[in-house]
């Protein structure tokens, strides 16, 4: 709480500075506001958002982007966005889950301003939301890990064990087992999306238990990738596809969000007056998710397998097609059924091959 107050104050000040005076002659074609919950230099979630917005800016001449980092998921975010509207923003990207209600309040008060929220569900004529469909996209990451591991032990650091995160772990393990039936995934939960000291300790603990590849679902992969590299363990990244540079020698691949095309289309629709609110969820091959470049250690045959798996997912392959058994032997998804869409939030069990407790 105390942290968020200060972060909010900084964010508000920065938002004002970022705007600056605008000369009358170069009136922007569209002013877009964006708020981030953290720093855009995190090699993670916020970096991916920033990259998407920058791509949108490059695609649309004269577009002006107003940004604010470290905006807490509190009423403070409403004030920051309100400030952006005062500066002429006609489209606002509220990029963290907890910004939803505050963006929605503003959408009702400003029917002429359009809002896109990342990860939520609320809808209004001027309020849509979007997110990457991550779970199935983790399957090719598992393929990469299953082929690359020598110890048959994979480590997965999870910030908070929400259903979607558990689904990521499950698809990862299923991908690994599809190419290596002996591959197991050990899970450590740190209890927060950004507790660096615990993330480092969790990565070390997984390596102590034999993991030679570590991956994660936390806000920023930086600490875990570096902790793994310090013990000669490989890493698979998540959130931003730029994380390879943290430890190039120990980088296998990663899964990242690519929001640029969607953001560009949304901005164009606002300019054309054709904005349509929708709940957009896209996975691999659909625009919002991509596989990061491979590291130098990954041989050609593994690259081919991973790319093929990613293509299969892009063409509609769903790993959660029954029968799927949990790690206590209970059939959770019977033969003939499949989980998809909103059911990805319902996981409170790990699939066979995962060592860990979900609840």
């Amino acid at each position: 709480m105390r942290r968020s107050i200060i972060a909010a104050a900084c964010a508000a000040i920065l938002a004002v500075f970022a705007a600056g005076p605008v000369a009358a002659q170069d009136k922007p074609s569209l002013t877009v506001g964006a708020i981030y919950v953290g720093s855009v230099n995190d090699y993670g979630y916020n970096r991916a958002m920033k990259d998407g917005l920058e791509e949108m800016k490059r695609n649309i001449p004269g577009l002006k982007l107003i940004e604010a980092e470290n905006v807490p998921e509190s009423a403070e975010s409403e004030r920051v966005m309100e400030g952006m509207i005062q500066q002429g923003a006609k489209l606002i990207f509220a990029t963290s889950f907890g910004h939803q209600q505050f963006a929605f309040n503003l959408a009702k008060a400003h029917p002429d301003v359009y809002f896109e929220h990342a990860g939520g569900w609320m809808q209004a004529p001027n309020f849509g939301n979007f997110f990457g469909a991550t779970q199935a996209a983790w399957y090719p990451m598992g393929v990469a890990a299953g082929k690359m591991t020598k110890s048959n032990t994979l480590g997965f650091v999870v910030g908070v064990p929400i259903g979607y995160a558990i689904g990521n772990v499950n698809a990862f393990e299923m991908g690994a087992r599809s190419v290596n039936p002996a591959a197991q995934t050990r899970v450590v939960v740190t209890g927060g999306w950004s507790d660096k000291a615990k993330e480092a300790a969790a990565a070390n603990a997984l390596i102590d238990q034999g993991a030679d590849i570590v991956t994660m679902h936390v806000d920023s992969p930086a600490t875990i990738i570096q902790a793994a590299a310090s013990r000669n363990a490989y890493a698979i990244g998540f959130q931003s596809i730029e994380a390879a540079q943290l430890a190039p020698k120990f980088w296998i691949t990663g899964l990242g969000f690519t929001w640029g095309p969607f953001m560009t289309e949304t901005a164009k629709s606002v300019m054309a007056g054709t904005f349509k609110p929708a709940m957009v969820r896209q996975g691999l091959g659909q625009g919002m998710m991509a596989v990061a470049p491979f590291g130098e250690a990954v041989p050609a045959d593994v690259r081919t397998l991973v790319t093929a798996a990613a293509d299969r997912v892009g063409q509609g392959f769903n790993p959660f097609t029954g029968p799927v058994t949990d790690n206590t032997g209970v059939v959770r998804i019977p033969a003939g059924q499949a989980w998809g869409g909103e059911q990805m939030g319902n996981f409170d069990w790990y699939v066979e091959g995962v060592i860990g407790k979900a609840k």
Partner: protein
Amino acid sequence: MNPALIAGIVAGAVMSGTSLLYATLGEIVGERAGIVNLGLEGIMLIGAASGFAVTALSGSPYLGVAAAAIAGAAANLIFAYVVVSRRANQLAAGLSLMFFGIGLSALIGRPFVGALISGLPRLAVPGLAPGGIGARLLSYDSLVYLALPTALLTWWLIFRTRWGLSLRTVGESPAAAFAAGVRPELVQYQALTFAGVLGGIAGAHMSVALTLTWAEGMTAGRGFIAIALVIFAKWNPLWAIAGALLFGGAEGLQLQLQAAGADVSPFIMNMTPYLLTLLVLILWGWRRQSAAPAALGRTFVGVE
């Protein structure tokens, strides 16, 4: 219990206990002078941010640690001015210092988020096979190796030197110290400078050695755990070693047990260090009266 698990628990306890130990030692010296500093969390954050920033700029983690020590001392001198010279309420001033530290560290660290540093090098005991259990147990950065001597030195300072006698007297009765020719304010300034140096180093260990990252609020309450550890340690630096290992171990232990596949809910696992803190405070509560410096938290307003 497999050997890798035990080695991991011990190494994890040492690694995360190190910053706790430095912070606790600093707080002990301050409290021995009668000053409670609830701003320790802020001091650690300032140390973590400035240590990381200087490491990123200079390329030298040692310069980073030195900068963290200086920054911690400087911030604590502000606190000393407020509570010693201006005689402000220590609890209120300490909390203000914490907020100040959170804000200042965010400001210092901001341009360096995402910077890549090579942190304090691990110095392994020679002759151990890399990747083996021995190497895991005996491969730490220099701040870890210096933590124990620092604890011993602090103990010696408090209990075996003339300055330590003055320090303890000031903490028990500033008036008596004053009557004996000691200037309580001077001793308190010195004690808080020392505490600031150690608090800054504690923070730097987290950013420059443990995680190689700067993130806002990254100490995540460890400054407050260190304040609780002072009580656990009964204001004695030697007990602080045990306390820091115990609490560092509690955090590492639950992560290790999760990795080893223990059949316990991760939600319960993540509560263990805090449950332990509560338990220790309950068990140790009755002893506090006898061990705490008598004038702790009181403002010395001179003698009539």
